[in-house]
């Protein structure tokens, strides 16, 4: 059945950790208005949380008025595009830490990247105009292998 919901949505976030709550509230609205199925909705929320917090934590110097822009496309495949003008960072290229087998050896970091690569069915990074552009796709029943 054709949907009256808009096929795209955009959100710009400032370089401020409090913006994560605005992202969560925006996703609540998108999930409802676009009637997203639970699987892709969960993957979208998780990957956007990981991608954006990574930019805010590592990509920017605190206090600088830089921004993260998020574009969501409903068709043909649910897609999130995250563009930021922070430090160059390609989450598709950096090595994941080895999976720990004991609590003692487990590092506190690296889990976000592992989740991002698993839950996005396609993940691509580019650097147009000196900015990071991360494109994430979420197939209806898909998660990346591994």
């Amino acid at each position: 059945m054709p949907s009256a919901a808009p096929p795209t949505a955009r959100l710009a976030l400032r370089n401020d950790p409090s913006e994560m709550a605005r992202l969560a509230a925006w996703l609540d609205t998108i999930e409802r208005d676009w009637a997203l199925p639970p699987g892709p909705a969960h993957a979208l929320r998780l990957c956007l949380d990981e991608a954006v917090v990574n930019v805010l934590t590592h990509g920017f110097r605190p206090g600088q008025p830089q921004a993260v822009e998020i574009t969501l496309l409903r068709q043909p495949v649910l897609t999130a595009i995250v563009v930021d003008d922070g430090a160059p960072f390609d989450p598709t290229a950096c090595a994941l830490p080895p999976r720990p087998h004991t609590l003692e050896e487990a590092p506190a970091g690296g889990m976000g990247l592992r989740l991002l690569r698993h839950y996005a069915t396609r993940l691509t990074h580019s650097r147009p105009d000196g900015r990071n552009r991360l494109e994430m796709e979420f197939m209806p029943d898909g998660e990346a292998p591994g």
Partner: protein
Amino acid sequence: MQMDVEALDGERARVVLAGRMDVAGTAAVDAALTELSETRQALLIDLARVDFISSIGLRTLLLAAKRLGRRGGRVVLLHPAKDVEKVLWVSGIAELMPIHHDADAALAAVLA
């Protein structure tokens, strides 16, 4: 997010979390969970009403378990919802701390 703590005995506690363990949610419980992991011997963390967890929440659970582990203690997780449990497995956390779906078994594990 919300956090309720119930003492099981002088050294062990049951922690019931509710809400989203995202950046904002985790910030609301991180200090209290950290303090519990420094002052108790074992924590039973009930995740039944946690409907979302991202790496920031996983990190808080992991650091609590590491702190307790260094003192010979442990964290036991109870009743994660399907999406949350999948994240625990994909991230590797599930291999580092026990997950139970039976409250009696979880209680036995935390009191052991």
